[in-house]
């Protein structure tokens, strides 16, 4: 491979594929960690309003919490990039 | 189906007549886009004249996005979309009605934009037959594709950013064909403009069919 263009072509293809593999591995490990210990992460810093008692609705927290699954209120959400794990509404 | 289409189109257009969003907001936006193009190209008259068909159709595309967003925003509140679903109307008819209403608004905007292009870019409107037919067929395609993707994005929170991303690549062929047809109509290219009409007609046919068939499924999922 004496030609620089050929070399960079091969390297570019390799780079694209390898980067994607790295990405897949990262996401796989993050998900596995999250699924492996669903309750083991420390309770997030978001303070639940003390007005919420054992509520009959059996629903999620009330006024104080940010709407739905924003990254911080998820188990382990604070400790890894929120992107792949966030489930938008 | 056609009766339902007429009903829905009538409803959308009547809402527009009463709220005047297209005339008061989208139309000035359209003219503004043309102005910005003029500023961007440093008021270079010959360049603007040459680029006019492309700039016109880009402006139309941008307005189409707004028109589609607006069309689905009409039903976003007060359970109106549920009402539409439960009304028992033929979903293909609802699709055609919504697309028709969008198309009518787009045609109005195109007239305004054409006028703007003549004034601001010095476009010389020869061969009006090709210009008009192209515009009509292209508009039909834009409205159909826009409505189909609009309903896909309608229920989502990220719809404002997702809809442009979905629609723009899809209507790129319309941009291409319409621009080429107009360029030939304005004498800027010797390419047979009527050829491009075939592509536009194909596009409109594909998306209209897909819309009539798929709208029901998608409406349920909004």
């Amino acid at each position, binding site marked *: *491979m004496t*030609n620089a*263009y*050929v070399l*960079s*072509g*091969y390297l*570019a*293809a390799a780079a*694209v*594929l390898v980067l*994607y*593999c790295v990405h*897949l591995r990262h996401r*796989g*490990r993050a*998900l*596995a960690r*999250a*699924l492996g210990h669903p*309750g083991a992460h420390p*309770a997030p810093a978001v303070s*639940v309003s003390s*007005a*919420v*008692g*054992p*509520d*009959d609705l*059996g*629903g*999620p*927290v*009330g*006024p104080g*919490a940010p709407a*739905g*699954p924003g990254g911080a209120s*998820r*188990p382990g959400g604070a400790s890894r990039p929120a992107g*792949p*794990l966030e*489930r*938008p*509404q | 189906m056609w009766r339902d289409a007429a009903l829905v189109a009538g409803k959308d257009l009547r809402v527009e007549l009463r709220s005047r969003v297209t005339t008061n907001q989208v139309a000035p936006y359209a003219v503004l886009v043309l102005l910005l193009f003029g500023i961007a190209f440093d008021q270079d008259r010959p360049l603007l004249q040459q680029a006019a068909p492309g700039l016109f159709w880009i402006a139309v595309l941008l307005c189409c996005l707004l028109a589609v967003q607006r069309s689905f925003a009409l039903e976003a509140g007060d359970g109106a979309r549920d009402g539409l679903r439960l009304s028992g109307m033929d979903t293909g008819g609802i699709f055609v009605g919504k697309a028709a209403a969008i198309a009518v608004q787009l045609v109005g905007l195109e007239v305004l934009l054409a006028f703007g292009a003549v004034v601001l870019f010095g476009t010389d409107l020869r061969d009006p037959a090709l210009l008009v037919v192209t515009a009509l067929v292209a508009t039909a395609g834009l409205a159909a594709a826009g409505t*189909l993707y609009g309903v*896909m994005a309608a*229920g*989502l929170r990220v719809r404002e950013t*997702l809809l442009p*991303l*979905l629609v723009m*690549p899809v209507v*790129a062929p319309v941009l291409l064909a319409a621009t080429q047809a107009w360029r030939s109509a304005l004498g800027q290219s010797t390419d047979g403009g009527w050829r491009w009409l075939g592509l536009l007609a194909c596009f409109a046919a*594909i998306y209209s069919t*897909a819309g009539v068939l798929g709208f029901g*499924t*998608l409406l*349920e*999922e909004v």
Partner: protein
Amino acid sequence: MRSPTASRASRIVGLAALVTTAAVVVLGGWVSPPDEVQGPLVRLIYVHPALATYCYVGFGLSALGSLAYLWPRTRSRRWDRLAGASAEVGVVFCVGTLITGSIWGRASWGVWWTWDARLTLTALLLAVFLGYLALRRSGGEPDSRAKRCAVAALLCFIVVPIDHEATSWWSTLHQGDTIGKGILIHGLQLETMLLSFVSFGLIFTWMLLHRLALETLEDRFESEGVVAAIAERRAEGRVKAPVPPASVSAPAPASPPAGTSYRGEVKP
């Protein structure tokens, strides 16, 4: 740590992919002869067409999966997962195609990009499927998201055959098919090119297997992860002193965690 998405199949395929790719690189990079016309640049033919082909395959599988999902008799989350996974791998291959193609174009035509039909349509194809991937990430209920994405995938797939035929329908700067109606290369070049299709096919399959496993993990996270989060929130709530319910002003859940409606399994 063992990769969570690996499986016996993926390991076998991965090994085979590694071996064949190494062979292609050696054969393609050194052993096979340079072209009479293109010179050493022909070596890119062992990379670029295979990337493009599996890009189409990826999008094709996505369309097939979408069809299978939409067809009531075969509806199953498995097809939706296939559609999503193969679209993503297809996008990766599409990026690879465009980059290697651009490098090749710079070398042989002197420009990084030109607006001929084949290149433009391939760029459009990428844009359209990026939109599809964005749609996959923006839904709520998995079943409605799946239906919506399935329709989108079918529409996006329309671009693929047009892109493939672009070099024969329009006069393009991009060359036509090397292995199409006739075969334009011979000998070791041909064999290496065929081997490259095999090796990239194995790479594609390997990536697809991992991506599918990942998709399954994500589904599990969506249902289990949210349920676990709710349980944790309730556990927190019980720790605080109870207060008369009149002061509770939990707003009507405008945004309940999507999980409450998943498969109806909100554990009390």
